[in-house]
């Protein structure tokens, strides 16, 4: 498993974490290249279905990040998101979907170094966990079911 490179998808809001990740770059802080960043207007816009789509399409880990509480560009998007993640996480835990692969964080536009740390710790943790085999197996089996039914 030594050559395993985790695929990590990061769903981030435009106003804080995305700007923070920009700062990481302009500050020339190096961090794991395993992460693919997808920018959203706000954490409130990050539909839970997108996380499932990420896993279905081969992600081994996910980061969801936005403005700190009280700092949302749209005032309350992150508060709504917080409630959503609380329930989503409980549902995933109940169904046995691995939430250790998902990092939820608040990273501001000024926290370039912190963004690097969030990514690095997530990548390290997912590297430890290995590829998300059980989810991929379910997806692949479902494709086979499909072919059989044709």
């Amino acid at each position, binding site marked *: 498993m030594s050559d395993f490179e985790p695929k990590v998808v990061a769903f981030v809001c435009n106003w804080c974490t995305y700007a923070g990740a920009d700062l990481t770059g302009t500050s020339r802080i190096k961090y794991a290249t395993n992460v693919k960043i997808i920018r959203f207007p706000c954490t409130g816009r990050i539909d839970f279905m997108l996380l499932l789509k990420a896993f279905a399409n081969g992600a081994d880990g996910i980061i969801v990040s936005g403005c700190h509480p009280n700092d949302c560009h749209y005032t309350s998007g992150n508060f709504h998101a917080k409630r959503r993640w609380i329930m*989503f996480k409980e549902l995933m835990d109940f*169904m046995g979907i691995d939430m250790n692969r998902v990092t939820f964080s608040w990273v501001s536009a000024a926290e370039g170094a912190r963004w690097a740390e969030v990514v690095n710790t997530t990548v390290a943790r997912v590297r430890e966990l290995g590829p998300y085999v059980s989810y991929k197996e379910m997806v692949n089996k479902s494709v086979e079911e499909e072919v059989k039914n044709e």
Partner: protein
Amino acid sequence: MNNLVARAKELLNSNSVQVVIGYETGPTGVARPAFITNSEKADRLIYDERCVQNLAVYLTKHEVRKLGKAAIVATLPVMRSIMMLISEQQIIGENLVVLGISSEGNLLDIADIRVMQGIIEKSDLSNPPEYRELLAALNKMSPEEKFAYWQKELSKCIKCYACRQACPMCYCTRCTVEVNQPQWIPVQANTHGNMEWHILRAMHLAGRCISCGECGRSCPVGIPCHLLTMHLTDKVFNYFKVYAGTSDKMSSVMSTYEPNDKESFII
């Protein structure tokens, strides 16, 4: 339930309502929904332990709406569904006569929404005892066992959407499942797509499910999909100390927030 029949007749004869939604005995002896528009047919109405279906689902259907003002036979889950539908502005409380049924099966005198609210508040609102054992057993499983359990159960799903149709809170005229740009949920029934469908449904019912169990009862292949929404009902209460369908004024848990909502996993 002679007084239920008498009350229905009285309401229809005085033209206070144009339809009474209740239960009648179907040809195979099971209880089925009845829509009584003529007092001469009100004798069909029954209420006994066979009458478990959540009738509130019909209140938002246009075929029923167009019959006119309705009276509805309502056990606790139906009353709570009515509260949810009023709070979500799907129905108007004043336009509805509630023929409440107590837990002992007696007709309750419900003059208005406040009286109904009082009855709901005095009741046990947690998940009904018959579901608690299975919920607890599932919670005790390891993540691998849980994932295997749900894959096995959901692999049976034929995507008939009876679970959605049976739920009073699934009244969307265009359900996300039918959206195809983008196609959130694959059309075909396969384990993975079925799981996505059920996660979506459960999330949409978080803080709105009133634990009637109708979704699970309606499933033709016996998938206990009600456990997903009921699990979230437990969690909603743990975190936010509310049960759905307790007030006509409340906004559902997922459409509101408190700045100090507690969680322990966001870094």
